[in-house]
């Protein structure tokens, strides 16, 4: 295909603003897929994505389109994930494009995430084609939203020129396709230059290994070639197959500069085909790599433990399998006094963590307990060394610590103006550093805050939604490590610290947290033979205390002939129950207690 007849583009939109529906319409309109084969929202392939209405894994689809100018164009629609956890992936897939359709819900208007992704798209130098979607809905205010888009994009989006579409009904979608052809620039790669292809996604196939989705920037990629990856140049792979993506793999002879497709080269796992990395011709490994590649760093950490110790092996195998397909999942074995053997896992964010946990439970049928998620701390010691701490129970105490640094993020919050007060309060509660706000329009405000990441990983998003009746939106990116007055707070049961309950927390919040956790544990731990003293402590200083009175009696008064069976069955049941409890010293802790500390409010 001639480069000037290729258009690589993506859709930038907020969750629910209709990205997937629009993709469906484009696929349908170009006749790429038989209508009978169309499943609703074909680009979201994972069940979990469908359920949550979000796109996690990137994907792409190639469409043939006969434009009104008579030319036949190759349109590559590259999907982007739409959640704050996946900013890096978004930027990689944007780099594979020359243009982006910016979809905004005509009734809801621009959301924080849309702005973030739009800025990423502008950073990547993409041509932006704004479109107002859902104009068929009664609440649509296209004029008002068009004005907003104009304010946001300037002359690139004159209110009268912004397309008003209904992806659901198909209204004006043909015009949108024309706009893509007319306005998105064609790729400008050098076919004759040595190969450079950008990986923007990777997928693991059980039989064929990791299969990266790529955009060929320069050169040509064909089967039989020997290639290498910029991140580990010494390994050479032979290309088995190249092709394009069309809701499946369609092999072709070669992929030229400017084209989008996939490559099969017997790569073991997706860890070796990282998004952002460059694929090179093995004979020309010295060419400059494509810019922007970054090791993906985990931001959120939590211990995952099998409820039943016998499932440890199963959990290990399951994590290994997931990691083949998810390079951003990190894990290493750890053990906990309370929970036994498990894994400390690193995630991109809280959503990523929830998705992993759900997949482990659903696809691998595992029953898991997770510890309170936390961030990674940099502990500067008095001897000048720095210790990186991902597990709160390993945080050193006392005099060896000179200072502790925690990650801060730059957050953008969009909220209706009536919630300014509530937003300010929430921001302060979460130790936010306020950096300003401005009105997007008379009704909506954009806030800038800097937050310790630890303050927003637990329930911040839910809280934000609650206090704004669902209208506020959040987006954040990593900023830097900063010193904070942090302490390690332990929960002790009968004097013994339960490692799984330890948290690292700001000194000013420790008392409140400790008190609430102690109260929750008091509710959730059943009375036992001995008194249970629950203490929250910083070092040796106890800051909150509760106690659970011992059982005064637990006896069946009568037991004669027929009752023996009944009683034995009860005992068998109780024994099963005991197995599911975690024993720390003399205290038995039910599973719910571990879950409950995740929901301390």
């Amino acid at each position: 295909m001639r480069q000037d007849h290729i258009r690589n583009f993506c859709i930038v939109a907020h969750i629910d603003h209709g990205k997937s529906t629009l993709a469906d319409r484009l696929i349908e309109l170009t006749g790429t897929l038989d209508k009978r084969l169309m499943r609703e929202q074909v680009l979201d392939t994972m069940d979990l994505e469908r359920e949550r209405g979000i796109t996690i894994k990137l994907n792409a689809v190639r469409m043939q389109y006969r434009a009104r100018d008579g030319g036949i164009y190759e349109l590559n629609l590259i999907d982007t994930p739409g959640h704050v956890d996946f900013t890096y992936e978004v930027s990689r897939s944007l780099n594979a494009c020359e243009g982006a359709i910016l979809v905004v819900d005509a009734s809801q208007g621009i959301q924080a995430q849309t702005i973030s992704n739009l800025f990423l798209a502008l950073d990547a130098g993409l041509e932006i084609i704004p479109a107002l979607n859902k104009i068929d809905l009664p609440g649509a205010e296209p004029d008002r939203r068009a004005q907003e888009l104009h304010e946001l994009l300037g002359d690139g989006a004159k209110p009268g020129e912004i397309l008003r579409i209904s992806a659901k009904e198909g209204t004006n979608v043909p015009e949108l396709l024309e706009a893509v052809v007319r306005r998105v620039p064609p790729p400008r790669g050098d076919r004759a230059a040595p190969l450079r292809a950008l990986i923007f996604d990777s997928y693991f196939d059980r039989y064929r290994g990791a299969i990266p989705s790529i955009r060929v920037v320069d050169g040509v990629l064909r089967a039989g070639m020997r290639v290498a990856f910029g991140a580990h140049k010494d390994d050479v792979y032979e290309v088995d197959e190249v092709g394009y993506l069309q809701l499946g793999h369609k092999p072709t002879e070669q992929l030229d500069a400017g084209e989008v497709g996939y490559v099969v080269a017997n790569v073991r796992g997706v860890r070796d085909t990282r998004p952002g990395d460059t694929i090179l011709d093995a004979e020309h490994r010295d060419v400059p790599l494509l810019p922007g590649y970054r090791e993906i760093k985990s931001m959120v950490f939590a211990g995952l433990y099998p409820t039943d110790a016998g499932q440890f092996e199963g959990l290990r195998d399951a994590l290994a399998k997931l990691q083949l397909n998810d390079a951003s999942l990190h894990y290493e074995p750890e053990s906990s006094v309370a929970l036994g053997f498990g894994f400390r896992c690193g995630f991109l964010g809280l959503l990523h963590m929830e998705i992993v946990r759900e997949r482990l439970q659903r696809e691998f049928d595992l029953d898991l307990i997770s510890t309170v998620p936390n961030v990674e701390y940099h502990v500067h010691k008095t001897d000048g060394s720095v210790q990186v701490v991902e597990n709160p129970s390993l945080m050193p105490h006392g005099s060896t610590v000179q200072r502790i640094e925690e990650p801060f993020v730059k957050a953008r919050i969009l909220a209706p103006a009536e919630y300014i007060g509530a937003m300010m309060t929430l921001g302060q509660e979460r130790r936010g550093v306020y950096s300003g706000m401005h009105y997007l329009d008379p009704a909506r405000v954009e806030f800038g805050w800097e937050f310790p990441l630890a303050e927003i990983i637990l329930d911040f998003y839910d809280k934000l939604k609650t206090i704004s009746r669902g209208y506020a939106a959040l987006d954040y990116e990593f900023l830097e490590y900063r010193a904070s007055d942090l302490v390690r707070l332990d929960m002790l049961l009968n004097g013994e610290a339960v490692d799984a309950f330890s948290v690292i927390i700001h000194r000013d919040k420790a008392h409140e947290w400790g008190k609430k956790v102690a109260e929750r544990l008091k509710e959730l731990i059943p009375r036992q033979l001995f008194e249970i003293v629950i203490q929250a402590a910083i070092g040796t200083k106890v800051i909150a205390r509760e106690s659970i009175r011992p059982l005064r009696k637990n006896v069946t008064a009568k037991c004669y002939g027929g009752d023996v069976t009944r009683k034995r069955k009860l005992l068998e049941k109780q024994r099963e129950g005991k197995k599911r409890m975690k024993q720390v010293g003399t205290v038995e802790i039910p599973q719910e207690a571990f879950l409950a500390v995740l929901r301390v409010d």
Partner: protein
Amino acid sequence: MHLYLHVPFCARRCSYCDFSIAVRRRIPVRGYVECVLRELGDLISSGWVDPGASPRGSLYLGGGTPSLLPPEAVATLLTHLLDAFSSTPSLDALEVTIEANPEDVTLSTASSWRRSGINRVSLGAQSFDDNVLQWMHRFHDAARIGAAVRTLRAAGLDNISLDLIFALPPELNRDWSRDLDEALALAPPHLSVYGLTVEERTPLARWISRGTSSAPDDDRYAAEYLLAHERLRNAGYHFYEVSNAARDGHRSRHNSAYWSGRPYSGLGPAAHSYDGRVRRWNLAPWEAYRRAVQSGRSAIESQEILTDEQRELERIYLALRTDAGLPVSAPYRLLPPLTAWVERGWVALRGGRLACTAQGWLRLDSLVRDLTALAVAV
């Protein structure tokens, strides 16, 4: 051999009772006797009743309310039932108990029971407080209890046990201490004291869910249980099981059979039988039982074959219910939970056996659970 006969009939359901009973104004005496005798015949021919098995056997008429049966019916039943024990050297070597409500005990009835072979009576006294008795749906008043005891003795039935219930809802203002005094004043050689247990689908459970009765209070339960231990000990009784105390030589032989895991056979609706390996039980509703037996079908509803592990669990549980306790081999005696329990005075280790104290019995179910989790195989 130990044989149990379940007599399911009652004039009214007691407020705390979830037993398999049939409330009847008129008792179908003939039908009942016929069914039981037929079942007995089947049992003997099936080999479940082994007359030679134990010279010191027991026969127990429980309920329900066996004392509601006319004395002649009791006589008929006993004639046949005792035949099953024909190889027993003398009838006095046999413990033959009937459960009775105080209001059913008259001199002629008691004398008839005595003549029929009954030599032990378990009297459902429950309390000496008339208000409490009414609340329980009992028909007798406190005065009837004393009268019944005297009548039984006059008829030559000295081996008497009184049942008492404690841990009643506080709003009844029941004076447990006084009730114990009253019971001890009658000097029965055996006493059973049962902590009130709220079972599902009883009038009491409904009262509690409606809020007209208060929920059970563990502290009260514990205090009253310990008081009973103290009083009875001082009066010369020895607790030989969680809820049972006796003077020397008056332990219930029949119930001890259950606690020591010996085989037993049961007749009548809902009755259970156990041969040391298989436990089987009869259809529980009277009508279902009657129809089955009368049409020549088996009265057995179901059975279970106990696994070794289940037998072990039962053995541990039952042994710890008794004062004999559980033999525990030396290494296990040093395990942390056991030593902590000994320290707290919940259990005592004597002669290689682990036995509960009153404080331990109060926590028995928890102790057993923890103990069996340790796999104290001995």
